[in-house]
């Protein structure tokens, strides 16, 4: 991101922090696609993408005023998205303990025509083989987040992020290629 766009973003965030609704709306419009992609990569379910993205943006709207550095909006937003996805998956896991479903109800396939390419299907399958936290890690890298920002999101060191990312990428590559062949 260049300097001018950072300035524009910072200004927009500051306006949103003052309660300016059009600025808040602009922020949602600019990030909804990226957040949706991130949510899909982490949860693997396209039918819950909109609901989870909505929760992320509601959290954003309610707490943006407390963000101290408006320039840090993007990593902050993706931290919200990551935490919301992990919470969602955790709740789903808990629900499974109390309401056990049969395996055929657990893995309901995506609706017909929803996944229209083999590449996407292979990637979805490969991602599903990783732990949710590793999926979030890879999705954050795909979003262009730096190692330092990811370390901040995961509350760990840059070295730990690099090591974990290396392992996660290896795993993803293995599943991706084995699925393609």
């Amino acid at each position, binding site marked *: 991101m260049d300097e001018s766009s950072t300035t524009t973003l910072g200004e927009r965030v500051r306006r949103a922090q003052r309660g300016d*609704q059009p600025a*808040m*709306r602009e922020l*949602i*419009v600019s990030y*909804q*696609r*990226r957040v*949706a*992609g991130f*949510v*899909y*990569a982490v949860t693997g379910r*396209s*039918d819950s*993408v*909109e609901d989870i*993205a*909505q929760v992320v*943006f*509601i959290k954003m*709207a*309610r707490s943006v005023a407390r963000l101290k550095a408006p320039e840090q909006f993007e990593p902050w937003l993706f931290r919200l998205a990551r935490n919301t996805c992990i919470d969602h998956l955790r709740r789903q896991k808990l629900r499974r303990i109390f309401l056990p479903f049969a395996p055929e109800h657990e893995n309901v396939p995506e609706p017909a025509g*929803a*996944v*229209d*390419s083999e*590449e*996407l299907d*292979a*990637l*979805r399958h490969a991602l599903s083989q990783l732990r949710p936290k590793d999926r979030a890690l890879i999705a954050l890298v*795909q979003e262009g987040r730096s190692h330092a920002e990811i370390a901040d999101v995961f509350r760990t060191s840059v070295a730990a992020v690099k090591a974990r990312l290396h392992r996660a990428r290896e795993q993803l590559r293995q599943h*991706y290629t084995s699925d*393609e062949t």
Partner: protein
Amino acid sequence: MKPEDEAWMRLREHASSRITPGFPDRVLRAARAKPSPLLVSHFAMCAGTAALCLAAVALFHAGNSGDDEASNLASWNEVAAQANDLEQGL
């Protein structure tokens, strides 16, 4: 472009196609809304249930410990009476 990158691009496209028109306005409306009364009543019901459970456990415990005390006292009286009988016999 690597095939993997193309897959990521498709993933983003597919995910954003799930966002229905009017999404930002729905988010803003929901963010402005106060917690629903349904949520408040849900919490009230949880607190009520917890209080009832606690009361039931306390009552059960009090009843049980009273019974135990009575049965201990009865056994103790029996032992005392037997000891008395034994003393008189001697």
